[in-house]
């Protein structure tokens, strides 16, 4: 029951964002940890000769992972405390998403034409600003293809 409620909340959060659907990113939740999956599609290719994933697509993947990870950590608290009701969420009353202030991406290896996975870690979360680290990998968790740090402006909370 609790699990269903949490999964429904995550689904409501993600399905409202057209760009996430366009890139083809899905989210796998285990407790409060989210792994995002960039499902390989031909349109994500940047260099058709290698072929390799487009750097912009992998950067966008990490940015989406960071924003959803950050929103989820806020949502989790509100949902657990009962401040936010699930039926409200599903009816489209979604919390405002954090806004990116700055995002730095390091490209470590070229992205192969297959699925990629990513996790974000909120390193600081304040009332106004938050900082998030993220990392994406493919076949091997210890060989990341990209890593990023981002700073975000938090949405205004009620009250």
């Amino acid at each position, binding site marked *: 029951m609790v699990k269903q409620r949490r999964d429904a909340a995550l689904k409501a959060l993600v399905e409202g964002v057209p760009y996430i659907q366009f890139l083809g990113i899905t989210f796998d939740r285990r407790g409060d940890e989210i792994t995002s999956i960039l499902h390989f599609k031909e349109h994500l290719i940047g260099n058709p000769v290698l072929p390799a994933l*487009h750097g912009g697509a992998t950067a966008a993947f990490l940015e989406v992972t960071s924003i959803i990870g950050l929103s989820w950590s806020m949502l989790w608290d509100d949902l657990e405390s009962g401040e936010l009701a699930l039926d409200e969420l599903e009816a489209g009353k979604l919390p405002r998403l954090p806004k990116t202030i700055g995002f730095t991406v390091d490209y470590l290896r070229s992205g192969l034409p297959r699925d990629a996975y990513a996790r974000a870690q909120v390193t600081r979360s304040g009332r106004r600003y938050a900082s998030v680290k993220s990392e994406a990998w493919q076949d091997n968790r210890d060989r990341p293809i990209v890593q990023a740090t981002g700073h975000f402006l938090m949405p205004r909370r009620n009250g």
Partner: protein
Amino acid sequence: MTDTKITQQFFEALPHANALGIDICFVGEGKAEISMPYAEHLIGDPQTRVIAGGAVSALMDTCCGAAVMSHPDCNGATATLDLRIDYMRPATPGQQVRALAECYHITRSVAFVRARAHDDDEDRPVAAATGTFTVVGAPCSGNRQSQCKWSSKGATLRSRHL
């Protein structure tokens, strides 16, 4: 001029650039200008209908890459090493985003690029970026030798294991 054409065609053939609807306005002499039309599927905030930061990142990355490739000292493909983007304000919904990039310094192995993006209001930038890119210069014998060393070392290691 023909070089510009080639770079232009190369970038327009990139599947992800195509999916974003990216259009090359100008490339040459280490500079590039490209545009991305507003589209439903690029929306990152459903409430304000502002396009996703990630889409602007992809535009900036492509524009910086085009600037590097068009630099006279770059003889071939390039790849992003790092890219930092500052978002100054949300792009106005319904308007295209235009990016301008300049490769302001290049060495035998690294190209340094800066870029900015704006919508219809050119005086108030939407985002700024700085990045470094790999450079594949003229065929370097030193590189090749070291590669040979590695492969022969690999071979001896392997044969030892056998």
